[in-house]
């Protein structure tokens, strides 16, 4: 049974065009060569650029929300069950509209059909939730069934429309389920870890070398997200930092020292193993996203290491991590540049593929915020700052009271 609305060759053609645009942007091919590639790879789907896609998405959400609101207001329902049924019907109608637009008008990542399926999912699940409540199902059952329902509908949307964020919603919804059974915190974490690992192994299983390029690209994104989710599940001290800031030492999630020592120290070891494995695997398989995620996770591990070991935190810790990052980046650049033809094992620091520019970049925004951060960090004359006294606080805060 064919689940995806779009034939694989059409999606592959879109991938080919995207690659060709990157080559053109980087000056690797001419305009005529780009046209030739586009001629061979016609996806026969209607696409739009990112900015129009955002507009379509936002205003479709607004429109559908207003339609449902108007209907509920006009009919002035008193019966909650009837409202639930109406929500389910609206969900079905919006879903069919999305299918119709994608099938008849060949809309692909156009914003309109995406917003329709997302609204459809929310309305359908909300309607089912209200119906369950009305039928005297216990709260714990509703809290279990609702995430499962979200996970299933989002996964169906992923299968049908290929939207990666639908897959992400599905995984998040699935990840919520273990927390609904009043289990011990350690069991909750272990269950979540197990669920995520199963999905990760499944994604590795379907990611075969002979599949289409667009699928490889999609699976790499999914695997990167899953790796992050697994890491966040394993690293107990990330929430611990929140607990430290809030001075909350009673809630086990906010005070990881309350976990059994075996779990605590296993998680410590895993916070090193996961980033190392990700970087190694990313380099071996040349998956850019996996390498990047691995390095980011390694930085998080270094940032939480002192918390795990109970060592004192200092204000200069971020600077030391920064110096390590800068030093490593410069070392790798020099090492790659000094190789034959500025390459080593196929890796190069040369600027070959230029990224797409949309006017202003996140780097520009971060630079624009710097004066504000510097202003906030100025000490008041004659007063020694008390915020980090005792060295028990995190170094990432700027002004918050620890």
């Amino acid at each position, binding site marked *: 049974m064919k689940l995806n609305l779009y034939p694989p060759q059409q999606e592959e053609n879109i991938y080919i065009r995207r690659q060709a645009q990157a080559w053109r942007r980087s000056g690797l091919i001419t305009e005529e060569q780009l046209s030739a590639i586009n001629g061979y790879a016609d996806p026969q789907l209607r696409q739009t650029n990112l900015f129009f896609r955002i507009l379509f998405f936002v205003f479709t959400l607004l429109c559908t929300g207003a339609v449902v609101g108007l209907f509920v207001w006009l009919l002035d329902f008193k019966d909650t069950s009837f409202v639930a049924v109406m929500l389910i019907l609206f969900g079905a109608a919006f879903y069919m509209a999305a299918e119709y637009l994608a099938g008849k008008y060949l809309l692909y990542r156009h914003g309109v059909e995406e917003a329709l399926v997302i609204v459809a999912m929310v309305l359908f699940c909300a309607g089912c939730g209200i119906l369950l409540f009305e039928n005297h199902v216990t709260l714990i059952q509703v809290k279990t069934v609702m995430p499962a329902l979200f996970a299933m509908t989002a996964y169906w949307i992923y299968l049908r429309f290929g939207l990666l964020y639908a897959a992400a919603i599905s995984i998040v919804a699935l990840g919520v389920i273990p927390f609904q059974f009043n289990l011990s915190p350690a069991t909750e974490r272990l269950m979540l870890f197990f669920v995520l690992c199963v999905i990760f192994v499944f994604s590795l299983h379907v990611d075969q070398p002979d599949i289409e390029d667009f699928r490889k690209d999609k699976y790499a994104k999914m695997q990167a997200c899953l790796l992050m989710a697994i890491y966040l599940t394993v690293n107990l001290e990330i929430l611990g930092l929140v607990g430290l800031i809030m001075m909350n030492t009673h809630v086990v999630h906010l005070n990881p020292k309350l976990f059994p020592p075996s779990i605590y120290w296993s998680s410590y070891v895993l916070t090193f193993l996961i980033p190392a494995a990700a970087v190694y695997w990313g380099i071996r398989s040349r998956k850019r996203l996996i390498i990047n995620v691995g*390095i980011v996770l390694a930085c998080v591990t270094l940032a939480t290491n002192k918390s795990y070991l109970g060592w004192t935190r200092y204000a200069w*810790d971020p600077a030391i991590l*920064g110096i390590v990052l800068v030093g490593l980046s*410069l070392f790798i650049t020099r090492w790659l540049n000094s190789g034959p033809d500025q390459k080593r094992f*196929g890796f190069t620091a040369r*600027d070959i593929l230029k990224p797409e520019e949309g*006017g202003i970049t996140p780097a520009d925004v971060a630079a*624009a915020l710097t004066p504000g951060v510097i202003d906030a960090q100025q000490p008041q004359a004659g007063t020694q700052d008390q915020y980090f006294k005792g060295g028990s606080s995190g*170094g990432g805060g700027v002004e918050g009271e620890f």
Partner: protein
Amino acid sequence: MNVSKLLRKLRYKKKLNSGQAELLLDLQERRIFSVHQELRFFLYIGILMIITGAGLTVKQYFVNLGDPAIISALTLCFTAAFIYCFVQGHPYERAEVASPNIAFDYILFFGCAFYSMDVAYIETQYHVLGDFWENYLLVSVALFFFLAYRFDNRLVLSLALSTLAAWFGFTLSAHRFYFENYYRLYAIAYALIVLCCGVLLYRLDVKKHFLDIYLNFAAHFLCIALVSGVAEYKILSLYFPALLLACAALAFYAVKVRKFLYMIYAVIYGYIGISIVIVDQIHRQTFLLFAYFIVTSILVIGLTFKLSQRFKEQR
């Protein structure tokens, strides 16, 4: 057909020369793997963390370290960074100039941030300029503009524009986020000055690629100020027609240069402004309220669709 097969086909049909095809195949099949963007990203994150760490250290330990140690360390850092940039940097050109190496842009940015920290520290501790302390920001703005243009650095230009905004009174402190009339007019003045500077330098052919940064700063400050004016005075002020004019100009510019980021700004800010005025008139009539949002959102979708078709954005 996948990318590799298509590249081989194009080489066979002589639409790609063999050198090009080899390079593209190497890139596609990852025999060549550029990590340039990743290295830049981690360099930048590293520099930002150094700036944060240095700021926190000064904030926490300034009594223990003492003013001479802090001031001399910060001065040494930014002087070394600036000397490095002047020694290593390419000569000035009006057009875009590539950085001499991967770290160059970030070293200049690091120097500017440490300069800011140093000057702010001196001013906070010694009140050199007394009541006119905010004027040290203007000196920083001038220096950052000079360095941004001299070394073709977008990050330092962003720093310069946000420092100028700080001189106008806009900081990250929460109490300055209220758009009182006083700040609203300052925001409009700031936006117009930034816009004029950007357009003038663009017309003079000086670093034309910087125009987007000017326009982004100007568009947000102007539109937020005008929307806040519309929210306060509704239709009974010049803010509403000014907002419509600004949004029309943004939309016109977006269509003209095909940069649709500005179209988002125009549509979102314009829609918010118009909705504030209309909802103010009909907020007691629920049916009209829902109908307004349904009709206008369909209208926006339709118009955007027409526009995207017109520019062959759709395949």
